């Protein structure tokens, strides 16, 4: 069956199987930033933005993306809030398997809240598991991105 969706800003038609998940579809199309870490909605490494909100692609059928806007890290160009750079600068990237989804989830938050507290950031990243870092530097990175954005705005 064909679905029509906006994929990283491009209106796209994709032929999907009725039982195919959005995760399977995106990986089949070559979006390797969307990882398969558990396929149960528990690890968060497959998170993408669906109409701007971060969600696990593994728990959605591809058909549910029909008519909706899907963004992966590949499509997060001008609206990444400098999160990728901040993650690298503070050393928040270890194996990197969780990072694209972590950045997307944080971007969803920052799009709605310009200055969340560390606790609010943590609350929003609760579904993004990381086994390497202990999360300290990832929270540092989001805070750094916010601080840099504030500098730009006030400067």
């Amino acid at each position, binding site marked *: 069956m064909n679905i029509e969706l906006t994929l990283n800003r491009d209106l796209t038609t994709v032929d999907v*199987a009725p*039982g195919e998940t959005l995760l399977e579809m995106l990986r089949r199309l070559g979006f390797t930033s969307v990882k398969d870490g558990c396929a149960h909605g528990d690890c968060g490494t497959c998170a993408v933005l669906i109409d701007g909100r*971060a*969600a696990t692609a593994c*728990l959605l*059928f591809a058909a549910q993306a029909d008519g909706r806007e899907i963004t992966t890290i590949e499509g997060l160009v001008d609206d990444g809030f400098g999160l990728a750079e901040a993650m690298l600068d503070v050393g928040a990237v270890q194996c990197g398997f969780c990072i694209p989804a972590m950045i997307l989830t944080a971007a969803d938050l920052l799009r709605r809240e310009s200055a969340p507290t560390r606790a609010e950031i943590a609350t*929003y990243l609760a*579904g993004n598991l990381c086994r390497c870092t202990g999360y300290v530097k990832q929270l540092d990175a989001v805070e750094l991105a916010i601080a840099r954005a504030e500098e730009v705005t006030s400067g």
Partner: protein
Amino acid sequence: MSRTQIAEYARPESLNEAWGFVAAAGPSMRLVAGGSDLTIASPPEVTRLVDLSGALSNEIRVTADGEINIGAMATLSAIAEHRTIASHASGVVAAMMTDVGSPLLRNTATIGGHLARGKLSDIIPVFIALDAEATTYTGELHTMTLAEYYDDAVNKQPHILTNIRLPPLPHATAAFLRLSRTAFDFPIINACCRVDFDGDLVTDARIVLGATPLRSQRASAAEAVVTAADLTPDGIAAAAEAARAEITTKGGWTASAEYRTHLVAVLVERCLRQIAGDGGAA
């Protein structure tokens, strides 16, 4: 494991059309309403999916007298972030909702999908405590209390859950507590207490335990203990003891029945103490 047997995906555009699928369907059909466990494991007999997103509302409407009407397709995030819900019954719904799954799940999980599934829920005991009503469609609309909805005669029969109604509770103070291993985890047990005050006098109360791990249970004897009196430390202790005695628990690999029963009293007492503090009573 495999989902390759799924041959059909339908998205009806109206409730009637959706009901047509449900009424006609046997075990080969499953409903999809938001993020779905069917992506993890679809039983081999499941060959047709019916997506309710086109047939049901996701709106959250608030009437002039404060009644909140939630369309079944509203996401848990939309409910958690809703301005009126944030202050309804001292904010218990919004506070509880941050314990449900994770944002990545709440952003696509719908209230209808969650309630219809009905398992190990933090939402159900809270909604029961808030006297929530469910509306179902079976060719015609039926409205019932959420507790009644979980009667097998309703819940296990073909139906479409269309709306949830939270009645206005201007005099209510409520609290919710849960215990789990990690923050993003199923509850080992949870409790929601709601107390309606007239001044210091308790006019009505709901004490509901969930994840026992049986279906949510009301602690009626405990409710009676605190009703028609001031909410005092002694009353709270007596209510906690009553709840411990009347709530049935079961053991499993995350917790024993004995521990869960112990926690019934602890959580009920803590919820009521929190209400007593927040509500200015006692």
